[in-house]
């Protein structure tokens, strides 16, 4: 466990010492502040619209941070040859994968806390309404969803050689799931066999990341998601994380270490 934590600590250090996060945070903050400062004749719909856009920005920023940070982890270790002194210690490849995963996921969590905190303060100071539990639920489910994304990108990083191709492919797949995943069963119904079975299979195979998008909880101040639903959604995500991490290990354990 100490080894995994040590490796994850390096990933977190890397995140806060690189400029990526600060650029995204400043960009999100400036846009949120600008939009938040505009008054649209005290129209509640326009305030919701501003919240919607700010949350969308947080979602995009979080995805960029998660995919960008994770995609370069293992390729950078191999390219800079730091994987050699690391694995020459009593460290297994499985521990490297777990450490990288934990580091990227925790780093995403820290970034999310900063982004949600900022958004919450701006939004609360305008609304004079502080739906803390709604924010916590949205933040938790968002973070759990990012865990699946991080594990998926980690698998991509041992399959694709270039981090850029991995990042591009996984970003497209994640966006595809977020936007189209929920409609795949309906699409399947309109297809002839065997395409119908294939699309249906795909519908049940992909991780339904769109379930974790509960921005409406904050935007429309909807009723909270039940604890049991939250727990089941977390369990569902954990299963996908485990499957992707196992896949990563199966590929990585036989992989040559030098690029």
């Amino acid at each position, binding site marked *: 466990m100490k080894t995994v934590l*040590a490796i994850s600590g390096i990933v977190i*250090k890397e995140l806060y010492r690189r400029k990526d996060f600060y650029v995204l945070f400043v960009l999100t903050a400036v846009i949120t502040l600008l939009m938040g400062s505009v008054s649209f004749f005290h129209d509640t719909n326009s305030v919701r619209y501003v919240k919607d856009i700010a949350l969308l920005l947080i979602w995009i920023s979080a995805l960029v941070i998660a995919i960008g940070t994770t995609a370069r982890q293992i390729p950078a270790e191999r390219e800079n*040859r730091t994987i*050699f*002194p690391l694995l*020459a210690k*009593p460290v297994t490849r499985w521990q490297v994968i777990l450490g990288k995963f934990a580091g990227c996921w925790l780093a995403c969590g820290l970034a999310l806390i900063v982004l949600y905190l900022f958004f919450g303060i701006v939004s609360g100071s305008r609304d004079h309404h502080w739906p803390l539990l709604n924010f916590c639920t949205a933040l938790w489910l968002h973070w759990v969803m990012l865990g699946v994304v991080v594990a998926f990108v980690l698998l991509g990083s041992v399959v694709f050689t270039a981090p850029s191709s991995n990042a591009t492919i996984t970003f497209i797949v994640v966006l595809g799931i977020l936007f189209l995943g929920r409609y795949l069963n309906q699409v399947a119904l309109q297809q002839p066999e065997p395409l119908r079975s294939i699309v249906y299979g795909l519908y049940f195979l992909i991780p339904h990341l769109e379930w974790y998008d509960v921005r409406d909880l904050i935007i429309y101040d909807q009723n909270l998601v039940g604890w049991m639903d939250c727990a089941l959604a977390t369990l569902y995500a954990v299963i996908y994380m485990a499957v992707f991490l196992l896949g990563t290990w199966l590929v990585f354990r036989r992989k040559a270490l030098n690029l």
Partner: protein
Amino acid sequence: MEAIVETKNLRVEFRAQSSGQAKKVAVKDLNLSIRAGEVFGFLGPNGAGKTTTMNVLLGFVNATSGAASLFGVDVREPIARQRIGYLPELTYYYKFLTAEELLRFYARIFSIPRTEADRRIDQLLKLVELESARQRPIKTYSKGMQQRVGLAQALINNPDLLILDEPTSGLDPLGRMKVREIIQRLKNEGKTVFFSSHELGEVETVCDRVAIINQGELKVEGRVADLVEKHQANLEQIFLNIIGYQPQLSA
């Protein structure tokens, strides 16, 4: 005396890059035995199989057949690497870390208690003469400094065996001398050192025993003094002769 590093009929084959090509035999039935307290030089031209052998010993590559052990433990077991230090050839350490942070990271991997880690970090940074640069990010280091921080990380667990892959590669004469001094010092402390190098003069100065490998095969092994006496030539001449180098006579 106890064998620290041992290989028995070690063979490593790599798959052909394309169909029609024969598989590449990188190491052919290699038998090596390095005893405690020895400085052992592993020599050979580029592509001879030195790094592959080291990669097997470090568990990076699986042997096709034969056996390899460190301290009597199969190299495939991670615990076999608990008492070793490894310096790879030309590694670029985490650029965003300082030397101190890098050493602390590796100390955490070995579960070294904090106060002991602090003491070792101070000691090692002094040994590799990086005390003044300990708080600077590694990205600002010269090649020689990076190699020295590499040497420090290899020593963080106070290893009984050091595996050095061309430790002086790419260094200027001063950097090479410093690394050589550190190896000499480790030897005096009774550490076992297994290193590959192309600097034959350096090997002759530092090593107790050498092995010369060519095209994956062990060609010669023995004490430096015995080899020099037997062949009536210096190590460089012996090396060139063994690998079959024919000097071109100029007109």
